[in-house]
């Protein structure tokens, strides 16, 4: 049981990252590729948070004064993930706007057809 417990979240984050990469490698639809990017971001966020998780400890908020400082989860990865999520949204919004413009010009979202610039 402890083996599954230890590896459960890593499987989740690794799985999401690999699925995201698979989409980018194989799928030809532009929106599908952007979804793939979103998956990779989510996967990395899960990885970051579960690196900071310590078994049997609570969230790092001392609203009630009785929590002694030692049994609290690591706050730093959570701070990093906050930033990473918002960066993910920013890139996503920009990607979709550029995808809209690409669709306006090429009338297709199929990546194999959008090949004006090569060689």
């Amino acid at each position, binding site marked *: 049981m402890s083996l599954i417990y230890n590896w459960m979240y890593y499987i989740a984050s690794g799985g999401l990252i690999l699925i995201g*990469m698979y989409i*980018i*490698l*194989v*799928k*030809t639809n532009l929106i599908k*590729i952007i979804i793939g990017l979103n998956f990779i971001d989510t996967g990395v966020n899960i990885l970051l948070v579960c690196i900071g998780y310590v078994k049997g400890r609570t969230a790092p908020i001392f609203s009630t004064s009785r929590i002694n400082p030692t049994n609290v989860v690591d706050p730093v990865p959570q701070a990093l993930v906050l930033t990473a999520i918002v960066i993910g949204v920013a890139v996503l919004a920009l990607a979709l706007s550029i995808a809209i413009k690409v669709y306006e010009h090429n009338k297709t979202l199929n*990546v*194999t057809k*959008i*090949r*004006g*610039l*090569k*060689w």
Partner: protein
Amino acid sequence: MQLITILVVSFLGAGIVYLTGKFSGRVRDISAVLVSLAVVILVGLAYNQKIYTNFYSLPFLNLSLSLRLNYLSWFFAIIVAGIGFLSILFSLEYIKDYQGVGFYYFMMLFVNAGMLGIVLSADFLSFYIFWEMMSWGTYLLISYKGGKAVAAGLKYIIMSVAGSLAMLFAIVSLYASYGTLKFSSLASLLQIASPGYILFLLLMFVVGFGVKNAIWTLHTWLPDAHAEAVSPFSAVLTGVLVRMGMYGFLLIMYSIVGLSLLHKLGYGLLNFNYILCWIGAITIVIPTFTALLQNDSKRLLAWHGIGQGGYMVLGIGVATSLGIAGGILHTLNYAVCGALLFFVVGAIEHRTGGVRDLNELGGLIKRMPVTFIAGLAGISGLIGVPLTNSFVSKWMIYKTLIMENYPFLAFAAFIGTWGTILSVYKFLHNIFLGQLPEKYKDVKEVPLTMQIPMILLSLAIILFGILPGIPLKVISGIEKSFGVEPLSTTMFGMPKEIGELNLINILAVLLVAGIVVYLIFSLSAKSRRVNQDDNYAAGLFVPRGKYQYSARFYDQAYRIIGPYLHDVVDDFYYWLVGKSKSSFQIVRQIYTGNINTYALYILLFLTLLIFVKLGWGL
């Protein structure tokens, strides 16, 4: 007298000329002539002084650029300055109606300054800096006229960049292994180097200088460059710039590696010098005979430039004191003759509106007598007729070949001269002799500023022909600096022990023969001057066409030896460029434009990195 002043005067002079050009043409022409004259005087004053100055230091590479003056550098410096001055003088009239004349004068003086820098530099870094500045300056000047000159310029710069990069490779390997680039210290350090390393260095330098001196396999840029460049610059190009390669050979083979070490390179017949002689011999024969077949006057002279370069390489390849002296003297002689002939062609081009095709011209002797005399002096100099300067140098080269008993090389040299005589006769005959076509009826003689350089150079040919002692004294000084036992020479030729050459006797004999011929000629029946076309042709209308048969002079010869003399080396280079172009096309297709493929490249790179470590790491 500081060496740096020579360089500063020439470089700043170029700048000043360009700036004055912005205001008025007259001032610019005068200042250009004055600057080049000043350079000639400055170099002349610095005759036999031994100077060595550090003028700039690069602490981060702990190197310092330095200049030095000895006989070798002075000898080449005076040629550079002299021919540079004469070509500036010649181009005053010639360039008047081109556009971008300010750029032309700036570049001419800049290239001259670069050459002076090469000749005066005392360490390989400043040598390389000035060398590169000269190369790209020449590139801009060759393609100055536009049209076909652009392709010629590109061909030149690619080969010269390839050559100079090979040289850079050797220079930096020298610096990496010895920590210094000064010629003097390198000369002593290289004595203890392994023969293999010296051979590698020599190979690299030969490639670098060979491209510039147009030895046989690296010569393909020269005909196009000379044919397309502006005539005054072609004179500088063939006379002096190409001879920088010669200066490089002398520098690396004798003042740095030294004669004794050269003999130890290679075993028996296969040593470095012998191969160089054979390259020289081939460079004499093949280009001279391709010159025979050319119809364009400039191209013909260009091929001769390569041929004569072969004599020089042959001369210094033999590595005897007579041979080296012959090679160096021939450098001077050909510089004079080559420049003179290009001035002649330039004069004709100037007067006949740019016509260079030998079949069109003819009979200009009546219209342009001074140019004819200069042309006659030039071609006799090229052939090596007695009483001209290259008779002395060719005589020395033949003598040393025979004394060192290289029969085949001597035979190649003779054939070379024979080919030169044939093609040069075609050059003179088609341009000056024969019947004057109508369209050149009103051709006048070239203006004075173009005649002076021609006259001066013709006098120089004759002067050095009769009194070879003047240049030979300097050359014996050069040989002393090489450590070769110097040639004992008299003012008029060679003393008895090396085989009598006394030009005064030859002069006396020829004078006597000349007077006798003149007497016979003037006492004989008075010949009546007859106009060409007032002969009686039984009432038929006499066509005004050319009676001259000189068109397509060596047609039969062309049919026989033409196919063999097809420039196979040039085709090889074009084939090489074509092959690399197609391979670049394949490489270009890596970027397919498909985003999935690009993502595939990224992940492939990542997995490659992981594999490289896992492979090595575990």
